[in-house]
């Protein structure tokens, strides 16, 4: 269960960051705490939206899904099942790929760094790794916290 607890905690932090960036994007927050203005440059670039929706909103949905999967997996009747971890793997895997693309854009195209986006990329990568470890443990036929063998 440990991987689901780690994932839930990090997904909650990611969710809060996404809400913060999304509220700024829609004008509900006047000032973005970012230091050198890089967050605003990235958020307001043409890459700040994906399929017509702010990228931060996609993050909000993805982290919300990861949080829900992780919390579901902590409920007694779901603890031995693989589905919650599979959900975490799929969502965080997509998040890692999308974050890698955004990080490339920041470095090579936009030439500005959004610190919150970098933090989010680290969070989703750690969630993915935690889900991967949990999946492998489940695949060996043991509960995530039970000793193998």
């Amino acid at each position, binding site marked *: *269960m440990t991987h689901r*607890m780690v994932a*839930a*905690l990090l997904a*909650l*932090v990611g969710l*809060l960051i996404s*809400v*913060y960036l999304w*509220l700024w994007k829609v*004008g*509900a*927050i*006047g*000032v*973005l*705490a*970012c*230091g*050198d*203005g*890089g*967050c*605003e*440059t*990235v*958020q*307001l*670039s*043409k890459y700040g939206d994906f399929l017509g929706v702010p990228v931060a909103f996609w993050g909000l949905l993805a982290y919300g899904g990861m949080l829900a999967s992780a919390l579901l997996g*902590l409920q*007694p009747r779901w*603890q*031995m099942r693989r589905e919650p971890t599979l959900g975490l793997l799929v969502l965080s895997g997509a998040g890692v790929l999308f974050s890698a693309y955004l990080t490339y854009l920041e470095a090579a*195209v*936009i*030439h*500005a*760094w959004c610190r919150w986006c970098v933090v989010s990329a680290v969070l989703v990568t750690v969630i993915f790794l935690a889900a991967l470890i949990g999946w492998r443990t489940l695949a060996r036929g043991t*509960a*995530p*916290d*039970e000793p193998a063998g």
Partner: protein
Amino acid sequence: MAQSMNLKPFYLLLGVVAVAGGAWIWSARSGAAFEPVEVGPLSDSSLAASGWVIGSQSAPVEIVEYADFECGACGHWAILNAPDVKERLVATGRVRLRFRDFPLPGHPHSPLAHQAAACAGEQGGFWQMADQIFFNQSRWVGERNPAGMFEDYAEALGIDVGQYRSCMDEQRGAANIEAGRQAGLATGVSSTPSFVIGGKLFLGAQPYDSILKYVELAEARAAQ
């Protein structure tokens, strides 16, 4: 067994993070995290005179904006709030608006953009050019070399392109740009946009309603 784990401490931690995060977002919404800082007048007269000014010299309040043309929040402010400030406060004689260049080191196209605005300003077109640069920021910010785009904006504004080019080649706006940056550093500016209104430094893209409130406070102090 996994089932026997006590999850209460974990849920408690999750709750603490959720409440702390929510409080942080709420404080950001209310602007409580960014208290204005009292600043004194600039002692160096050349720094004090730097920048670009619109509005009546007799206006009781001066708003000084420190901005970077490549800064997204500055572009955001220029699109969403500057028109209201110009129409409701500057045009009515309540406020004089001074723009000071504050190009940030992490923005590769900022020096060129500030030069372009200054060279348009040499022919009386600074504010129009600044609007063009800000309004089209998302178009040029990802270009390898946006010099041609800036020249197109200048040409569209009726700027004499020959004079504009010679100004760009000779970097005739450099002294004013550097003076603006030095004025910002002397004032304590570290991020953009920042505003000085009535002797107080405000950080971030202040919405029009906040600007109006600060101007009213400055007017009240000036009347005392």
